[in-house]
């Protein structure tokens, strides 16, 4: 009881001061506030934005934990290839965990500390409460970057993403682009050597480059874009024992997370489903093009175009993007019909970019950002349909009375 009363007294003390938003942000993590309804409905549902965001984070935690083990596993497996013969047996080990935690947790900490720091500063300047949007963004960011990204780069990117991607538009709920992807896109174009190639996906690859025992690890997309054959089995890809961004390798855990989001009604099943349909559609078209013989072996597009359409769903960051980032309600289409269109084009464009832009074979980031920009337009036309119906009704009536 004591803590609750003491915090209440502190809250009253800080009320109206500049520190109030910062204090309240921390206070409300411990206790939901004593705020009551004033106008309108006197009772409210139990869900608030914190719970919503927290649900997404819960869906991400398995990916994070897997990512930690995978970071260690990929490092040791790159040194000693025999480990790959029994991935399951050599995956959940202390060595993997310690190395992974040592490399991944700093990313998480930097992402949260820098990002929330910016949010707090803006909340204090603009005198509003600290909104929860960054809780999810802060978790997404470490999962979609390469393991060895220097922390200062991450910090710079986070500041850029939060300020330019979100705060200039008015904060959580007002942004046009997904902040996590804005951060990744910034890294991608500002520091391309740290974001692609075959030296960034395995811990230590960059540091040991040029040495006799140098290790490397290419993503499957990179391999395919170079028209070679990936060394990993389909099951490895599905379970996620492959190099890639920290948390997006395990399709299995992403599916579990996606189902959890759909079940809790936090993530939009419309977007997820239509994005998968879109990706399959584009994949089938490319498979058809190859089957027709229009693209021959030797073409630079052949490797990715020839990949069976359903493989696209389990390689690269497509699944992760669809489940956790395309569904961001603020930047997605806001109407139900719009969500179908929006999701479909994300899947469709992802595969298209993947195939036609082998220099940057990960298409989902750009596809989502592109569709973020088009989402308001899609909504505009969906809403326009309803408006036209209403106008038609009124016109019909006028004709009748005239």
């Amino acid at each position, binding site marked *: 009881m004591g803590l609750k009363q003491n915090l209440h007294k502190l809250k009253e003390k800080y009320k109206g001061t500049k520190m109030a938003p910062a204090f309240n942000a921390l206070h409300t993590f*411990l206790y939901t*506030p004593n705020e009551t*309804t004033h106008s309108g409905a006197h009772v409210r549902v*139990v869900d608030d934005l914190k719970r*919503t965001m*927290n649900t997404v984070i819960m869906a991400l935690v398995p990916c994070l934990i897997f990512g930690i083990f995978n970071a260690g596993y990929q490092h040791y497996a790159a040194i000693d290839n025999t480990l790959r013969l029994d991935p399951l047996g050599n995956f959940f080990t202390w060595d993997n965990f310690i190395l992974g935690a040592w490399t991944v947790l700093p990313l998480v900490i930097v992402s949260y500390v820098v990002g929330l720091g910016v949010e707090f500063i803006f909340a204090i300047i603009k005198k509003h409460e600290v909104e929860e949007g960054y809780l999810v963004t802060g978790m997404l960011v470490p999962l979609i970057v390469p393991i060895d990204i220097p922390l200062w780069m991450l910090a710079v990117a986070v500041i850029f993403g939060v300020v330019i991607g979100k705060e200039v538009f008015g904060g959580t709920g007002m942004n046009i682009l997904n902040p996590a992807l804005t951060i990744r896109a910034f890294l991608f174009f500002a520091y391309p050597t740290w974001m692609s190639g075959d030296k960034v996906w395995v811990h230590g690859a960059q540091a040991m480059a040029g040495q006799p025992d140098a290790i490397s690890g290419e993503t499957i997309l990179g391999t395919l874009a170079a028209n070679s054959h990936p060394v990993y089995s389909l099951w490895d890809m599905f379970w996620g024992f492959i190099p890639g961004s920290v948390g997006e390798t395990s399709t299995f855990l992403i599916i579990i997370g996606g189902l959890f989001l759909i079940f809790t*009604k936090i993530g939009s099943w419309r977007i997820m489903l239509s994005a998968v349909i879109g990706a399959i559609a584009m994949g089938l078209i490319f498979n058809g093009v190859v089957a027709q013989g229009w693209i021959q072996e030797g073409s630079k597009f052949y490797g990715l175009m020839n990949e069976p359409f359903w493989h696209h769903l389990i390689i690269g960051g497509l699944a992760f993007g669809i489940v956790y980032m395309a569904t961001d309600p603020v930047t997605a289409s806001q109407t139900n019909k719009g969500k179908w269109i929006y999701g479909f084009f994300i899947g469709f464009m992802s595969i298209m970019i993947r195939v036609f832009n082998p220099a940057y074979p990960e298409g989902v980031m750009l596809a989502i950002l592109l569709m973020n920009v088009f989402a308001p337009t899609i909504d505009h036309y969906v809403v326009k349909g309803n408006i036209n119906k209403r106008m038609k009704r009124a016109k019909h009536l006028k004709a009748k009375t005239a």
Partner: protein
Amino acid sequence: MSKDIKIKKGLTIKLKGEAEKTLSSAPRSRTFALRPSDFHLITPKMVVREGGKVQAGDTIFYSKSNELVKFVSPVSGTLTKIERGAKRVITEIIIEADPQDTFKDFGILSPDSSSAEAIKSRLLESGCWPFIMQRPYAVIADTEQEPRDIFISAVSTAPLANDVDFSLNGKEKELQAAVTALSKLTKGQVHVGVGKSGSSPFKGLKDISLHNVSGPHPAGNVGTQINKISPVNKNEIVWTIAPQDLVIIGELLLTGKFNPDRIIALSGSEVKTPKYYRTRIGSEAATFLYDSGLKDENVRVISGDVLTGKKISPKGHLGYYSNTVTVIPEGDDYELFGWNKPVFDKISTSRALTFSWLTPNKKYDLDTNTNGEHRAFVVTGNYEEVFPLDMFPMQMLKACMVKDLDQMEALGMYEVAPEDFSLTEFVCVSKQPHQQIIRNGLDLMYKEIG
């Protein structure tokens, strides 16, 4: 001829403390109050001064903008006090009641043989006009314009609401008189929505067009029924009237007396014996609250249902339009880890560690806590699940917030009242005040266009 209206989208909120279907008479109230704030956008022009004697039916004040619209005393007694708030706005007019009522006699008017003109002027002079609401704008009806149709909802789907079939029991005569009179005021129809099952007293009446309504809340909201029967278009006006107000109108026509009796449902988890009371518009809530007894001191007394009612003090008075009084616990307390722990005892439309979906028939004891802080709109798609009207609720709210009149009109603002957004407000994760936003939007439109 009756038609079926079936509502699919919505949410029936099941709360503890449903009123038992027994009718008691509340003790006669010592004072009665009229609150001008019950009549939206009406500025009162007083007729009676402090200390003046009134009969039931005597005009107390009229609308400053239209002196035909009169507001009359629900009781005979002495006007003892005119309470004023900021800028000398009248907040409450208190009338101390006589031990026995004397009524102003308006004379009997047979609805069958009277002209529309006679009926209209009788409704105006007797103070019955304020019972007639209009859409667009959800305000007291304009006296100049003829309505396209008149809509009456005799279904209650709101949480712990007054069961219309029960409270109208035996009032067929008054209802018939009222609907016949109203049917003369429009070239269109008098549409009445009744519950699909149940024995509504409207079922045998003439001069109406009957609709069988079924589905979750807000199926009983008149706005939902209008949208399904015949939506309001630009430059059209429809009227809406609550069924209990029809009884008052009917009695006035049949007896010549303005006798504003109310049968209210006293409900809510904090009421010891929730049941129905016969009382009168403007009565002290204490007369029935303490007859039935409250479980706790720290409660919220609502004149109306939990979604649309107004907060009153336990010593306050029953609102002009209320036929329900709900008492629920105040939620002015902190809750440890309320935002992430699993929740079993509160309602949620998601399944984010909230488990109300497991027990769809459980009755809940909700308090007034907002369960979170006010935020910008973030989540999408959850309003649509509980919003049966054919329009886009979130876009509408945003249009109102940025005062985009063209967009508001295009999205269907003429069709709605704040109460249509009570469920979206209930489920709102960002805890936005939807009804207030819509009210402000309607007021703006009324000022600029209406």
